């Protein structure tokens, strides 16, 4: 029984927790098949230490509608590029505490090599394409948009600092 690609991909951007494994287990049960011998489940979590600073919490801002579209597009591209059965992927927005799951990706595949490669490709592609921004708040009270110049550098240099 063949399935249309849309039946094999589930993606969402959400303010609700992604911490729960079981939710992905349910989705994989719905979209996976007994032809899939491998499941790869990746979670990105809020880490206490980032680039040597102690993080207290994060805020993710998204370009909501575009992020929904890009995440779906990324997963459909993965379905084209890799021999995988089904994909479920979700990304949090809003305020996250330490240890909370920010991104979760489940991939089922007949063979494990395809699953590992597709899972890795999806998270790497999310990191370069998904229009989501991370505002890190630190133990020392400061905060910083990840990927942006530091406020001090921003005040003292011109546009070329982004180059």
């Amino acid at each position, binding site marked *: 029984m063949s399935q249309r690609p849309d039946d094999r991909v589930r993606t969402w951007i959400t303010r609700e927790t992604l911490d729960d494994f079981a939710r992905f287990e349910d989705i994989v049960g719905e979209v996976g098949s007994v032809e899939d011998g491998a499941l790869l489940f990746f979670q990105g979590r809020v880490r206490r230490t980032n680039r040597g600073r102690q993080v207290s919490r994060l805020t993710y801002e998204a370009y909501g*509608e575009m992020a929904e579209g890009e995440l779906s597009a990324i997963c459909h591209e993965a379905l084209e590029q890799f021999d995988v059965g089904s994909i479920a992927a979700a*990304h949090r927005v809003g305020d996250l505490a330490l240890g909370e799951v920010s991104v979760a990706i489940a991939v089922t595949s007949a063979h494990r090599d395809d699953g590992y490669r597709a899972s890795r490709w999806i998270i790497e592609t999310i990191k370069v394409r998904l229009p989501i921004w991370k505002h890190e708040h630190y133990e020392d009270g400061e905060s910083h948009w*990840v990927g942006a110049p530091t406020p001090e550098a921003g005040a003292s240099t011109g546009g070329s600092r982004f180059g």
Partner: protein
Amino acid sequence: MTDRISVRTLFFGVYGELAARREGSAELAADSTVADLVDSLRGPGGLDWLPESVVVAVNQSYAEAGTTLSDGDEVALIPPVAGG
């Protein structure tokens, strides 16, 4: 005379912070491109910190500098993304 177009502009992440606004609008000559819009935003008294190579999405898809804008387009200025 040349028609004018109006586009909606969105500023995300650090751009929203630096621009002190999350959205705005811009009036442009018809047939203006993404690059024309960015130039006008960076102009005197404007967002001079916007990089030449700023990433832009038009109507929620990534767009090239040469993409021609249309009246009513939604143009988002996309700082370095940091999902995951």
